[in-house]
């Protein structure tokens, strides 16, 4: 019996000290490379590849080279679960991704059970409220973003009524459920509450409904491709009221896809390469030089996810998943300590992040920062 217990302990230790003996540390990236999340996932993948190349060129983490493997989640909860299980079975030190909140919610129990840290790109409020000590964000929780946006609608747009257009998945429903109470608290009437579908191609009917709601502003909370299609439909139907949104409405891919229809769109973004932060601007240049297009916020998230692994592993001085998860809760990584983190970031006890964010407007196809909003708890 004692022998069996000792053998199990040795096996556990071997697992937890990961593949350091092999000279590499394995990160497995489960990410949206096809399906509706492909634009987001491609940016994330590129960002993480860029970070790994940089870190490996400088000697890796604690002397170990990073081995980064990408698995396509297909933006599908079932495929994501299978890929995350495979990542755990293949002894990943940390699992990176996915970005879409539904696949995150469907798969994060696998890493939790295996005690493998998972750094994701999702914004839905729910998944960091379930007592999972191994899930960490790279972007702001939507529940933290919505009060900032509601203030913006009241104070800057002076909206008395708002039409809310949201995507009927975990991300969109979470955003809608966070936003509507914030609007109501500020005395702003919800003139229309319009659900749309993931992968929806035709937004003409939704745009017509929004137009006829005659609200003072339109709040759009869709994924990137759907955002672009909605903006085109809104332009086609002659919607002239301010269109306000979050990061997924204002990303580089949306601007590319929507073309002129993106001009004038305003909103709140957590991360962008045009932010008044030298490290973000520098990252944007490196990314564009390597991949030939501008990174959106997901490229930044993929990049910083890898640098988060580096910073925390160096802080704890070993590759130990449990120690990693403990150290990341409540951690703060500043650009001064780790330039690859790009913007000073804090993690809360639940795995949410807190950092500065930005109010921007799309002008002539470019995001222009109008204001920088402080951390919630500096």
């Amino acid at each position: 019996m004692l022998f069996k217990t000792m053998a199990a302990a040795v096996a556990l230790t071997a697992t937890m000290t990961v593949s350091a003996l092999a000279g590499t540390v394995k990160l497995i990236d489960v990410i949206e490379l096809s399906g509706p999340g492909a634009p987001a996932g491609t940016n994330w993948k590129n960002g993480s590849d860029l970070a790994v190349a940089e870190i490996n060129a400088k000697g890796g983490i604690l002397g170990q080279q990073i081995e980064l493997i990408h698995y396509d989640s297909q933006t599908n909860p079932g495929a994501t679960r299978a890929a995350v299980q495979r990542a755990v079975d293949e002894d990943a030190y940390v699992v990176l991704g996915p970005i879409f909140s539904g696949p995150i919610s469907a798969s994060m129990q696998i890493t939790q059970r295996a005690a493998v840290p998972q750094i994701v790109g999702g914004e839905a409020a729910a998944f960091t409220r379930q007592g999972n000590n191994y899930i960490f964000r790279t972007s702001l929780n939507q529940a933290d973003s919505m009060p900032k946006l509601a203030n913006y609608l009241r104070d800057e747009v002076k909206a008395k009524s708002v039409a809310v257009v949201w995507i009927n998945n975990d991300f969109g429903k979470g955003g809608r459920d966070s936003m509507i109470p914030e609007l109501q608290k500020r005395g702003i009437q919800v003139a229309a509450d319009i659900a749309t579908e993931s992968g929806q191609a035709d937004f003409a009917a939704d745009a017509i409904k929004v137009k006829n709601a005659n609200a003072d502003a339109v709040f759009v909370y869709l994924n990137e491709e759907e955002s672009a299609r909605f903006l085109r439909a809104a332009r086609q139907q002659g919607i002239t009221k301010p269109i306000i949104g979050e990061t997924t409405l204002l990303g580089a891919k949306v601007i590319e896809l929507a073309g002129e229809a993106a001009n004038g769109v305003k909103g709140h973004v957590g991360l962008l390469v045009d932010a008044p932060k030298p490290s973000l601007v520098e990252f944007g240049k490196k990314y564009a030089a390597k991949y030939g297009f501008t990174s959106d916020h997901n490229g930044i998230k993929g990049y910083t996810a890898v640098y988060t692994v580096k910073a925390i592993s160096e802080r704890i001085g070993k590759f130990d998943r449990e120690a990693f998860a403990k150290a990341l809760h409540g951690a703060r990584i500043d650009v001064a300590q780790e330039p690859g983190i790009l913007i000073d970031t804090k993690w809360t006890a639940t795995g949410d992040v807190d950092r500065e964010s930005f109010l921007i407007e799309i002008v002539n196809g470019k995001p222009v920062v109008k204001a920088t909003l402080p951390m919630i708890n500096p």
Partner: protein
Amino acid sequence: MDQFLQLIVAGLATGAIYALAAIGFTLVWQTSQTINFAQGEFVMLPAILVLTAAHLGLPMGLAFIVGSAAFVLLFGFGFKRFLVEPMQRHGVLPLAIATMALSVLIKEAAKNGFSAEAQPFPSLVPEGSVSVLGAAVSVRDIAIFVVAIAAILGLQAFITHTRTGRTMQATAQNPTVARILGVPVERMILLTFLINAALALIASYLISPVYLAKFSNGETIGLAAFIAAIVGGFNQIRGALAGGFLIGLIDNLAAAYVSSAYRTAVPLVVLVVVILVKPEGLLGRKEERTV
């Protein structure tokens, strides 16, 4: 009232695209008695080919010409010569299954060979809105409707008022008798496939600026057009036309007055009702076969 009118116009524009694709189902059915399950991908692909040609460095105008020519050659002539002809002699079912395989092949090739992401596609029709009966209506919707109708009327005029068109009709109605009467049946069938490719081309260029060019676009369009063809009448062009507009209208009205979540379910309900009440479709012709 304004909203209803705007939805009707948007529905007719969507329906025009469905009608173009649905007529393709009808044409292939009439000439080869099979269902082309790759019809949706036929509408998706021309835009991807044009963008591929543009990415290879061709000016956009030339990219349109090269992409269009490549598509008509591959999926007009090539589809008939290398898939329909060899499979047809094995019966309708193997051919239908072959078109399913073709559908998957086209989709995956577009995804892996071009991009998994949506891409912007240049609009050939103007944007903006005009006032119709006091309601602001999208110029692009009107343009899509007009272009699609012009293409369909042109096809109808060609079939009914030209010798070649009437020969095509004769081939569709009874290829054996047509052959005995000296009609070049194979050439007429090829012409039908080329027309199908041309209609898919037009639908692709009209809808891709709205849907964005993406490998998965054929799923939505193919399903809607298939339903439209059955609802209208699979063996009649006018049936496919009517079915396309009906499904387009139902699609948009359902999205506005029922829910976006159920917009794809409502046409399916209509399909079930039509099959129960009038199995040959609203404007279809009853077909009898000897067993």
